[in-house]
């Protein structure tokens, strides 16, 4: 038959190269789309109110966005595997209070130990989530909805009506979120590196790719011999640990911590992830996109504030943006499918 005799094409011959370019273009569009929205938004806001681009304001935006971007990193890892972690806000709250109390009670405790404590608290919560999802086989939406309330409840019981106030910390704890290099907060740089690391892991290591595989087609992942339980468990543990770290940063950033810290963050984080182009049913998306999504939502919050828009609008606008992002995402994937189909039709496949 002719088919079997068809010559092996040289790498880089026209047909596949163009399709690779097409795929590249689409992926770039996915993240560039959000970047474009971000740039336009910043430009418009700055033209109305130049104060928006003051270095102080930029620093505030970056630090706040950093905390969200970190949470979005953990959430993305979970969402890619076709799960969701709704407990991140509660984990952040618990970690924020406990580490803040640690930092104010035990002056002289080295900062890394405070962070380790935060990671430990988050990891513990993540392990509980992971075990219930993988061994208990309970849908993650249900599990983490339950732990959202349980962890918040524990937080309220521990905190009671009290709070930790900034004056009680040793100073270096508060400076974590204040130090800058060339006007950019240290924190933002560190978190950017962490996110880059996360992106690299998800792209170039088997365990990372297997998370995408699990989210893309769980049945096929099982048949391919992927250790699904272990991977999904790891995703939840990571998400928990990251939320724990975010708690430490939160305490450092806001200083005053009570039992409401991080309330309803989970939805904003999921929103950032989706706006950032991560498919809510798993299998595709990037942590970089999610981080930019977090930055975008934070920028919008800040812009509305600077422009004097009532904060009452924040949530409505965030929701509107979510829908916009989903519509964009859908349009892009429809166009991709159509172009792939046209191509295979031309090829006479």
């Amino acid at each position, binding site marked *: *038959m*002719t*088919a*079997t*005799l*068809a010559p*092996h*094409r040289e*790498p880089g011959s026209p*047909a*596949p190269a163009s*399709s*690779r370019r097409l*795929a590249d273009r689409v992926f770039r569009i996915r993240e560039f789309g959000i970047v474009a929205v971000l740039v336009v938004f910043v430009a418009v806001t700055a033209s109305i109110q130049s104060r928006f681009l003051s270095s102080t304001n930029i620093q505030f935006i970056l630090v706040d966005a950093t905390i969200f971007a970190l949470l979005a990193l953990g959430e993305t890892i979970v969402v890619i595997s076709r799960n969701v972690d709704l407990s991140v806000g509660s984990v952040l709250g618990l970690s924020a209070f406990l580490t803040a109390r640690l930092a104010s009670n035990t002056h002289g405790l080295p900062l890394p130990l405070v962070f380790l404590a935060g990671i430990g608290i988050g990891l513990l919560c993540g392990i509980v989530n992971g075990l219930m999802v993988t061994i208990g086989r309970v849908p993650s939406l249900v599990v983490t909805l339950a732990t959202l309330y349980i962890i918040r409840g524990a937080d309220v019981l521990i905190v009671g009506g009290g709070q930790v106030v900034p004056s009680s910390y040793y100073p270096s704890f508060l400076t974590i979120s204040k130090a800058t290099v060339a006007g950019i907060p240290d924190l933002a740089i560190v978190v950017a590196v962490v996110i880059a690391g996360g992106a690299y892991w998800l792209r*170039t*290591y*088997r365990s990372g*790719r*297997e998370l*995408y*595989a699990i*989210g*893309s*087609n769980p*049945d*096929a*992942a*099982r*048949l*391919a*011999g*992927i*250790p699904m339980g272990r991977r999904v468990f790891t995703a939840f543990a990571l998400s928990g640990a990251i939320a724990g770290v975010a708690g430490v940063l939160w305490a450092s950033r806001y200083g005053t911590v009570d039992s409401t810290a991080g309330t309803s963050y989970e939805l904003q984080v999921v929103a950032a992830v989706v706006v950032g182009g991560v*498919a809510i049913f798993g*299998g*595709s998306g990037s942590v970089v996109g999610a981080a930019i999504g977090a930055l975008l939502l934070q920028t919008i919050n800040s812009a509305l504030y600077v422009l004097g828009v009532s904060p009452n609008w924040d949530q409505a606008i965030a929701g509107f943006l979510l829908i916009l992002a989903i519509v964009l995402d859908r349009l892009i994937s429809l166009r*991709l*499918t*159509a172009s*792939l*189909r*046209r191509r*295979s*039709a031309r*090829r*006479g*496949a």
Partner: protein
Amino acid sequence: MDSPGTPPAPAAPVNTTSPDSPNTPDSPNTPDSTATADAGTDAGAPVVLSLEHVSKSFGAVRAVIDGSIELRAGEAHALVGENGAGKSTMVKILAGVHQPDSGTLLVNGQPTELHGPAGAIGAGIAIIYQEPTLFPDLSVAENIFMGRQPLRRGRRIDGREMTTEADALFARLGVRIDPGRIARGLSIADQQVVEIAKALSLNARVIVMDEPTAALSAVEVARLFDVIAALRADGAAVLFISHRLEEVFEICQRVTVMRDGRHVLTSPLAGLTTGDLVRAMVGRDMPERVAGERGAPGAVQLTAQRLTREGVFTDVSFEVRAGEIVALAGLVGAGRSEVARAIFGIDRYDAGTVTAGGRQLRKGSPTAAMTAGIGFVPEDRRQQGLVMEMSIQQNVALASLATLRKAGIIRASAERSFAADWAVRLSVKYGRLTDPVSMLSGGNQQKVVLAKWLGRRPSILIVDEPTRGIDVGTKADVHNLLDRLAGEGIAVLMISSELPEVLRLADRILVMREGRLAAEFTQAEASEESIMAAATGQLEAQER
């Protein structure tokens, strides 16, 4: 892996059980063995894998009661049997998905337990499933190597090496698929190719192919057979599962037949006939159906006028009359199913019109199509034809709820009598009508889909691959049913990739190629050769 070449003690062909099994391999009266088993395995080739007397039950359902298979290096071994005979369960045992309740699995003569799919992969067993199991969001290369990606320093995935290896695999298979593209949007045939590439990349000694040709066109089947021949030459064993017995005779050297969860026969194919196999499969003779003598077709029921959907199909016009079966033939991907879906209003189309029962149909509205009397039995019955979790009676009643309800409420008793009526008419084999439809065999599921639409008394019936993956016995039932329906005056539009089916049933045959109607034949004019010539373009036809 254990060293080969140590055949286990009970390696003799398992040739037992059924009193009415046809002539056995030992029978010396097989002079005409040139056709198939010429390059056949010599009986001394080492047994690479065997399942001996395995059983597997799911709750009360005994899927496999006494199953045995023995695969030798370098052979293509067919596993045939009606749907529900236990073939799929045997495959899943080999895949490590199910652990047998009893019996042994020997890999190179060593008793082996497969702990999950990874265990099967580790034991050198690759499975190509009937329904492709790809990751739609990942690249083709990643699909092939998932979990086994080539690594470079620091345990990082070597993307370039992965692409190169994928290219090499596709070169071996003689196809051009870009390893960098994502799997979403690949045609079913290309998906199958990716699955095969995956199996090749495992360097598996045993390759199980579960209905690999069901979705392939003739050209692609030929390509697959070349691959199987190459695998055999490399000393691999191929377990080939197919309902198309011609293919079994073409590519395999030995055959194992199962019936009702039991091993019936293992034999070289040389000297056997299709009739022998069918008898062993069903335990009775198949009546060869003669082409139905239906009356002259009546009025035009369904008209498609210059239907066009950009990039999918172009300028498709035809009509179907009452009491007539019109077949849409052609290769997979020629746009046949897409035309059917457009007619029924599932997909939109860019230009043209559809007229049913004298009225022009609104675009993109299945409701309008149903009101106009069209019934649609889709290609993928599990995904599109049935609600797998719902009961048989609920599925049958699903399209007729409007007529069954009283004051807006659907009573189970009305649903039940309605469903029972149709189940009897189509001779669906079931336990209870309240059982989930997923418990039925493929053929009986298809009858349930048909019952669902027939319950609406359609004047036009569109059936897409009505017998795909259905066993021989039920297939004949479905054929007789379609014939009878046409006899009762229903206009039937049938899409089928099986030419014998097309030739047996259709009054007229329309051949599509690359989204266009390439030819039209009457039953008298048509032959497998002429249809294939039109479907593939003349070039391939001359080579055949």
